[in-house]
């Protein structure tokens, strides 16, 4: 038993959690004694225990289960046991329920857990639409409704979109750049999913949950950056990297730079609330507006954290499915970096009606209009990639094309919102809801679907059902538009967002929207069925069903436990589709004669296949 308690695992995790609970109580008691209140007069006085506990318990759990062992070993100079591969790779489905050190297993764990939260968040949306189907009160009261949409948003942003992108990239990216695993920090961060599931609702819970989610997403981002910079295969120069790697590089930079701001903003809230600090107490010289500035300084870049990885997925899918080199490869890479930089200059466009200093409005309006430029460059480059390509219109491609159209609509409503007069008119109306969903559902979620279908054969070794995939796409596209397009209209007519009840004049549209949204919900079930059934009994997938050039398709499906027997050598760009004799990577050491320099972008005229 004592060995079990000393070695990493569930037993030690349990022990540490108990110790942390004792510590939480002890610390709270000691601090209170120091301040002179030595008894807990009321149940509510125990709040400090809850707060310390909420920070200490998850940490203790992670330490116990062994997430930080690598660091402790490294810092104390003991061998970090690189030869122990017992926790590496999945040999049966049970291995997916254990901590693992294989980036592929972790990636699938993230992805599947995140999809669970997609269904949770979607169900909440259905509840809201049920309430909104008619004016007046149906099922829930105003405060429950309030809770519903807050949790709906936080669950889908923090527990679905951000982690699912991290999951997909975690699976694909090391394979793509020819690394045997994630970077050297990899052993210490299997923690995202168990961490995130501890983020329930309520202000304090939200606050602390964000701290944890923030810390783990920074850890993840550092991992990606270190992996991309230091572990690329020989010959894989920055400008031979697939754009998915570029996209995750840019996203990780955004995370590393921006996330500390939301962590700090939640820290201010916590200090004010729990210890009586005065960051936001105007009566004592604090400043409420400061919260909004700090919050949006993170949260605008955050919308790109939710979008750039999707841009990467689309570049992969479009080039392969159009059988053409990506148009303007370098511009694609540089526009990602431009978005990273410009993303930090526009935060106050969320505050036009907040009572902030008026002089900030015009500069923010201009920068917001400018940030649409690199995004536009990407859209036009994708269109040019499609131009005269040989389009293979299967499910991943359909979702990619769906993304292109829907996201463009969302971007256009975004630029409209950047115009101060219009924004003041439609702020806090359904127009905003429409914008958000065209960019997040029509944008991010469509790219996620495209990516999941595209890499499904690689991840599971099975093919998905193409017919069900197409049914899923068309029903999603139609009901998505039926749900969200009318919201532009009722928004401009003045229907406020975040309310459980509304004026009778909007009744007709709202009923239609609710019905469409239920159909949209149902269409997701087709996806769920397809994924589960195909994973269990789909046809076996070949190593490279899409005839793609990037490295992840050059190994078996699913890939071997250690990705490569030997790290490949990269001799050309990743998107030379239709270029005769083009090679991206070769296995075995390159003979000097074979290495012909074809950096991406400088390709010959493509040949139609």
């Amino acid at each position: 038993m004592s060995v079990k308690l000393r070695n990493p695992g569930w037993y030690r995790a349990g022990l540490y959690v108990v110790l942390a609970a004792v510590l939480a109580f002890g610390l709270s008691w000691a601090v209170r004694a120091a301040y002179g209140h030595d008894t807990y007069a009321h149940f509510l006085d125990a709040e400090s225990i809850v707060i310390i506990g909420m920070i200490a318990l998850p940490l203790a759990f992670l330490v116990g289960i062994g997430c930080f062992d690598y660091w402790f070993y490294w810092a104390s100079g003991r061998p970090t046991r690189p030869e122990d591969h017992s926790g590496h790779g999945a040999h049966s489905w049970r291995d997916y329920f254990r901590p693992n050190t294989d980036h592929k297993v972790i990636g699938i764990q993230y992805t599947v857990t995140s999809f669970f939260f997609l269904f949770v968040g979607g169900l909440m949306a259905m509840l809201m639409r049920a309430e909104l189907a008619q004016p007046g009160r149906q099922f829930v009261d105003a405060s429950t409704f309030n809770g519903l949409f807050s949790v709906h948003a936080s669950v889908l942003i923090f527990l679905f979109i951000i982690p699912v992108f991290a999951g997909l990239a975690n699976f694909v990216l090391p394979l793509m750049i020819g690394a045997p695993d994630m970077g050297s920090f990899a052993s210490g961060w299997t923690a995202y999913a168990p961490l995130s599931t501890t983020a329930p609702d309520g202000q304090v819970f939200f606050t602390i949950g964000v701290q944890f989610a923030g810390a783990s997403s920074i850890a993840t981002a550092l991992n990606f950056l270190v992996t991309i910079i230091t572990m690329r295969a020989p010959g894989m120069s920055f400008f031979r990297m697939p754009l998915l790697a570029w996209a995750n590089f840019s996203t990780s930079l955004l995370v590393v730079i921006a996330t500390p701001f939301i962590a700090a903003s939640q820290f201010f809230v916590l200090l004010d609330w729990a210890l009586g600090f005065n960051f936001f107490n105007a009566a004592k010289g604090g400043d409420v507006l400061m919260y909004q500035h700090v919050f949006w300084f993170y949260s605008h870049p955050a919308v790109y954290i939710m979008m750039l990885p999707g841009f990467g997925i689309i570049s992969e899918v479009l080039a392969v499915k159009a059988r053409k080199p990506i148009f303007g490869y370098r511009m694609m890479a540089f526009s990602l970096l431009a978005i990273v930089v410009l993303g930090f200059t526009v935060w106050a466009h969320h505050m036009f009606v907040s009572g902030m200093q008026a002089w900030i409005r015009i500069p923010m309006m201009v920068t917001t209009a400018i940030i649409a430029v690199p995004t536009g460059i990407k859209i036009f480059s994708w269109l040019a990639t499609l131009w005269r390509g040989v389009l293979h219109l299967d499910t991943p491609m359909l979702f990619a094309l769906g993304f292109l159209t829907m996201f463009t609509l969302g971007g256009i409503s975004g630029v409209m919102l950047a115009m101060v007069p219009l924004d003041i008119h439609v702020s806090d109306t359904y127009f905003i809801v429409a914008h958000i969903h065209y960019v997040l559902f029509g944008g991010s979620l469509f790219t996620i679907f495209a990516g999941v279908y595209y890499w499904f054969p690689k991840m599971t070794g099975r093919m998905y059902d193409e017919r069900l995939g197409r049914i899923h796409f068309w029903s999603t596209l139609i009901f998505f538009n039926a749900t969200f397009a009318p919201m532009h209209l009722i928004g401009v007519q003045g229907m406020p967002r975040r309310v459980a009840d509304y004026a009778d004049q909007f009744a007709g549209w709202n009923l239609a929207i609710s019905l469409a949204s239920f159909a949209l919900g149902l269409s997701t079930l087709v996806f769920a069925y397809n994924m589960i059934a195909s994973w269990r009994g789909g046809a076996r997938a070949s190593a490279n069903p899409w005839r793609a050039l990037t490295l992840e398709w050059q190994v078996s499906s699913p890939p071997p436990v250690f990705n490569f027997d030997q790290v490949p050598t990269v001799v050309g760009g990743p998107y030379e589709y239709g270029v005769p004799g083009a090679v991206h990577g070769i296995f075995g050491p390159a003979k000097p004669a074979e290495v012909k320099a074809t950096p991406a972008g400088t390709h010959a005229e493509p040949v139609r296949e």
Partner: protein
Amino acid sequence: MEAAAISASHVHDDHHHGPPPANRSSRVEPALLGMLLFIISEIMVFGAFFTAYFFIRVVADEGTWFPVDGKDLPKLIAGVNTAILISSSFTLHWAENALKLGNRRAFRAGMVATFLLGATFLFVQINEYVHIGFSPQDHAYGTVFYGLTGLHGAHVTIGLVLLGMVTIRAFRGHFSAEEHRGVEVPGIYWHFVDVMWIVVYTTVYIL
């Protein structure tokens, strides 16, 4: 990083069933790079606190700052404390150089000196809190003062833990003129903590 070094030394082992060694595509050590990127994150945390400082001092109340309610900040003591902390950066640098030259005695002495200087800084800082005469609950200026110096103090504490481990390992005979990554990476963090203090001291106490 040591893990890489260890697995690299096993490459010639025929019974090896682990991953193929990763290609090293950058001359920068992964651990070093990770630390540098992490420091960017840390700078942004301080950035958020400085934003709060800026809003509360400049925007909210038109330039109200200490002395508030007749209580001023102890510029002089904090100045001496600043000198203490900065000198610890020099002793650390000296220790690292000594290690690279193979002078273990000087290395150990330098580490102990660095650790003690850092601990002194923290001690003086806590003493300052006790005698300063206002609390973060009194007004927003106190909140920002405790917020910024406290945040920095937390970083000093983390830095001290790292340095403490290095010091203990120094006495156990770890590290050598060739293997000094484990000193360098925490060292960079410590230099960062020092530089950050200069910024905090100038903005909060002097300006």
